[in-house]
């Protein structure tokens, strides 16, 4: 009797394991197939540096949104000609933020999140974190943006 029981258990356990292995063997290629664009984007995400020629810079008191590898970045040129660059993706639910010079703020229209336009600090509304800051270096005739 006990021998019989263990044999039965063994058979069921073996069958279960085989079924799981089979499902895994089928599921893995399907997952890789579906995730392919995401993997490509992950390659892009390794980009840590980009250059912007002088002509493409925003005018003083305005901003522009750039594709920085797989990320979106907002480059703000303040009135005093200082430049800062942050991730343009709201830390709340991922909308793209906007720079509002007249109100001196970075604003997210989706749920009214507000960030400080000089530090990227979240000031009010739902965003839980500040915007990630990128390094801006001004060279001759161009600007280099770097990510740590």
């Amino acid at each position, binding site marked *: 009797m006990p021998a019989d029981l263990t044999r039965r258990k063994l058979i069921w356990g073996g069958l279960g394991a085989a079924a799981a292995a089979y499902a895994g063997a089928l599921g893995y290629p399907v*997952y890789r197939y*579906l*995730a392919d*664009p*995401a993997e*490509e*984007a*992950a390659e892009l*995400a390794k980009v840590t540096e980009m250059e912007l020629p002088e002509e493409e810079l925003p005018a003083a008191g305005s901003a522009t*949104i*750039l*594709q920085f590898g*797989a*990320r*979106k970045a907002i480059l703000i040129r303040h009135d005093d000609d200082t430049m800062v660059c942050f991730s*343009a993706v*709201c830390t*709340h*639910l*991922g*909308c*793209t*933020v*906007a720079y509002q010079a007249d109100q001196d703020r970075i604003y*997210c*229209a*989706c*749920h*009214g*999140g507000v960030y400080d336009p000089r530090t990227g600090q*979240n000031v*009010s*509304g*739902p*965003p*839980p*974190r500040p915007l990630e800051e990128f390094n801006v270096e001004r060279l001759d005739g161009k600007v280099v943006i770097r990510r740590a």
Partner: protein
Amino acid sequence: MWRGSMAKSSSAGLSALGARVWNWCDERLALSSIWAIAEKKTVPLHRHTFWYFWGGISLLLFIVQAITGVLLLIYYRPGPEAYDSVRSITYDIQFGWFVRSLHSWAANLMVFAVFVHMFSVAFMKAYRRPREFGWWTGLALMGLVLVFGFSGYLLPWDELSYFATAVGLEIPRSLPGVGALIANIVQGGPEVSTVTVQRFFALHVFVLPLVFMGILGVHLALIMKHGSAVPPSEEARPERERRSIPFFPNFATQDLVMWLICFNVLCVMAFVFPWQLGKPADPLASAPEGIHPEWYFMSQFQVLKVLGEWIPGYLGEILGIGLFTLGGVLWGLLPLYDNTSQSGVRARHATWLALIALIGLLALTIWGYAGL
């Protein structure tokens, strides 16, 4: 004289032929036993009979969606050309605007009809034994209708659809662990893109309809099996005072009239207020001011927004998502809690829950629109 007799004999011949065809089919398809069942079906007649129509109206709108959907499919091109193809459907192709407008209006009306149907079932307590699975399949269908709406909204690839999808997908993405997996599979990358459009397309035109029709089949079979429930006020009456009408042909005719009215309303809406197309989606643009989701996601939107203001950060977000999940779970468990017609206190609690849900959703939606 002879003409008359001739007509008579030929009609007799025809009906004899008809009878033979009927018998031939009946023997193979068991038609008469199906008819025998259908003939006995009745629909209760009382003050609230009107609410019985809403399930049928939802069904009509699903049929409209299937037909207009196939028509749109003929010109729509998913992926990078999505916006252009919708633009040409809307502005170039003869009556393209009308087909698209019908599809969009019917989608909205369908969500509305399903909500009315659900709440009328809740208030009539039609989820009670033995109709629990009717309630659960119905909730599943409602969930699918919302996913239909959400996925279809992205397909034109215009500005509003872009951000609506980005925000909507951020919610499953915030789940720990599986979040990234979901983003990889559903979104096809770290951001919403035309890759996402292609995926939503496959989902919207094939996967969802298939699953929907399967569950719908079960839902309808259950209604055939158990018939329409009567509300408690009616159940309290003695048997002989209750009235009903045959499903065939009486209620079916009324149903058809209802369908006709609804279809006309739909056509007028689609014609008078043709559905618009926004600017093409630009991944490098900021979210436009006053951006908001479709009305049926407005309550969730408002909760996220308000909780985000009161309790900034993750806590507010988690609380908002948790609130809706908890509400949904309680809603699903309703038939297990309020399960018999004798349960006085539980019945009252269930009515309260339904009332709070209804008023809550309405209030949040209105509040959401007021705050735009």
